[in-house]
């Protein structure tokens, strides 16, 4: 365990992961029950990445997220109630019901959007990082993207520009081994996406994405580096999603074995972290239980809020296409 990490940080990391896990499990159920429409790409299994990275960011720092974005939103400070409301398509949601799961955003929290376009985030985060440097703030922009997204040209262009301009930007590749149903070996000839970093002139770091402390430490270095004006880093986190690409059971395809899924679950980020914290006396079984209980309460309240919220109406349809009003 790294030095200088307070117990509070450890506890926060844990509860962040638990909140994500529980939110996603519940969202998956609500989708299967037909309460949430559209497509949900759930984050279960990858919690350590969002938690470990976001621990170093404030509301002022920006992130771009992906189609698999709930975990990022929660770790960046997102509340369950407006998240559930958004998934339900209600006007009280983070995007007034206009965005849905693939577009949750909140500027006050520095969330420049989940994105339905694979590879959509990196250019936008690079632009935010450019703005941070231009405006001479100390903000950092972090872009999350998958192994699959690393094959999009948009990642390439953003990475090159971030390195060229030495932008305060961190590229976090969540390599969960698949782009949809296509295994990494079938979409790229390299094992480590981080190998691409050298080609842009930035450091590339590989870290165990199931180990929240490892992510935390690697992210700390990358974000410090960015904040200090020393440029971007490509941080690859090896992780795994437990659910299917969409929803829980998805299309029921057999592109991976139950054994493979189980093997990853053996290394579950939350459970192993709980074991560690128990061993170190940072948490007790009772306290852990409380974390889950609080998350469950939050869920209950969030779902109730979502269900009781109104749907947007005709007047809302043509709103928010353009900014209307005096120029700023």
């Amino acid at each position: 365990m790294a030095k200088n990490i307070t117990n509070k940080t450890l506890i926060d990391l844990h509860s962040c992961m638990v909140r994500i896990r529980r939110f996603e499990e519940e969202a998956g159920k609500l989708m299967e029950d037909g309460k949430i429409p559209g497509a949900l790409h759930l984050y279960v299994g990858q919690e350590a990445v969002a938690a470990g990275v976001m621990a170093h960011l404030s509301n002022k720092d920006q992130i771009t997220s992906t189609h698999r974005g709930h975990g990022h939103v929660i770790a960046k400070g997102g509340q369950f109630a407006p998240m559930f409301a958004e998934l339900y398509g209600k006007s009280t949601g983070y995007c007034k019901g206009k965005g849905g799961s693939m577009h949750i955003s909140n500027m006050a929290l520095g969330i420049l959007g989940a994105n339905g376009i694979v590879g959509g985030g990196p250019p936008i985060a690079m632009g935010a990082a450019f703005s941070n440097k231009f405006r001479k703030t100390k903000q950092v922009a972090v872009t999350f993207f998958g192994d699959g997204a690393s094959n999009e040209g948009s990642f390439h262009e953003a990475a090159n520009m971030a390195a060229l301009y030495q932008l305060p930007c961190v590229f976090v590749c969540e390599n969960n081994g698949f782009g949809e149903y296509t295994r990494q070996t079938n979409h790229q000839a390299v094992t480590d996406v981080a190998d691409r970093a050298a080609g842009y002139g930035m450091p590339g770091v590989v870290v165990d994405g199931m180990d929240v402390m490892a992510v935390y430490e690697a992210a700390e270095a990358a974000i410090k580096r960015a904040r200090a004006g020393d440029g971007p880093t490509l941080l690859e986190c090896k992780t795994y999603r437990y659910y299917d690409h969409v929803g829980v059971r998805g299309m029921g395809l057999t592109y991976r074995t139950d054994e493979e899924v189980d093997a990853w679950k053996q290394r579950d980020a939350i459970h192993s972290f709980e074991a560690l914290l128990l061993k170190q006396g940072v948490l007790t079984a009772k306290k852990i239980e409380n974390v889950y209980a609080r998350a469950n309460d939050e869920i209950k309240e969030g779902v109730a809020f979502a269900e009781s919220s109104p749907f947007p109406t005709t007047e809302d349809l043509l709103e928010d296409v353009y900014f209307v009003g005096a120029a700023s």
Partner: protein
Amino acid sequence: MSEALKDGPRMLPYVSAITEGVRQVLQEQDNAFVAGEDVGQAGSVFGYYQGLLDEFGDRRIVDTPISEKGIIGLGVGAAATGCRPIIDIMFMDFLGECMDEVANQMAKMRFMFGGGATLPVTVLTMAGAGMNLAAQHSQSWEAFLAHLPGVKVLMPSNAYDAKGMIIAASRDDNPVFVVMNKMSLAMQAEVPEEMYEVPIGKAAIVREGAAFSIFAMGRMVHEALAAAKTLEGLGVDCEVVDVRSIQPFDSETAVASIKKTHRALVVHEAVRFGGFGGEIVAQLQEEAFDYLDAPIARVGAPFSPVPYSPALEKLYIPNAERIVAEVKKVLGI
């Protein structure tokens, strides 16, 4: 299948008609292959390639990285050198990622080369809203393709056309886009087992009528038919023309219809402003000006991205109700 025939017409859902069309093309053309994201093992996220990997192997059903520019490039380069690729762009919205390859390479290569290159490439892609997939997974961008000399653009509204258009596209020695609709996948139609072509450049009159012409594209054909039924109850005898071929556009059929009915409406799912409906109206008022008893109306999506919320998406997508309302407005009834 002779079993099925005994029991009546052979009905297939749109999704299976796509599969059958592609399968028969692969059987017919040794140099044809399918390439795209998750077309192989997954059989496409819409399921329409399921079984083909087992049948044809991974030489001919090729899973690609998430690289739309690369995928279209693969299709262009392979088509120019002796293959007949069937390229899959999962959602039509993703054409944004490869617009250069489509618009500046695929569409223009033959012309820029002075006729030197021939590009028998087919692109299958999925358009349309209705599944709460929000702004980036629900669009209908046929107007972009229609404005590009060098490509052909088809929009099958039903299972029969889906199969026949895929076959016609694959046999054509030009780049042809087949723009499919995700809400139609389960829709059944009579689909013959043998190979057949739906001719490129021919609209279909799917309902004859004397008093009003509705020109509809893609899934809107069904909304138009529903509207026609309602309007029949109001004493308005509508003709419904399935535009089917966006480029080339069958102005002959359209003009003949409007010369008969003197009134018309164009409907597409795409955003109304700047949509292909404008082209149709412009041509019709030019060719049939003296036959028009009323302005040609247009129904399309409002000027906004596609919203996620079911409550809003329902308001957003053009439907029979709105068609009826517009027709009534034109007729002043």
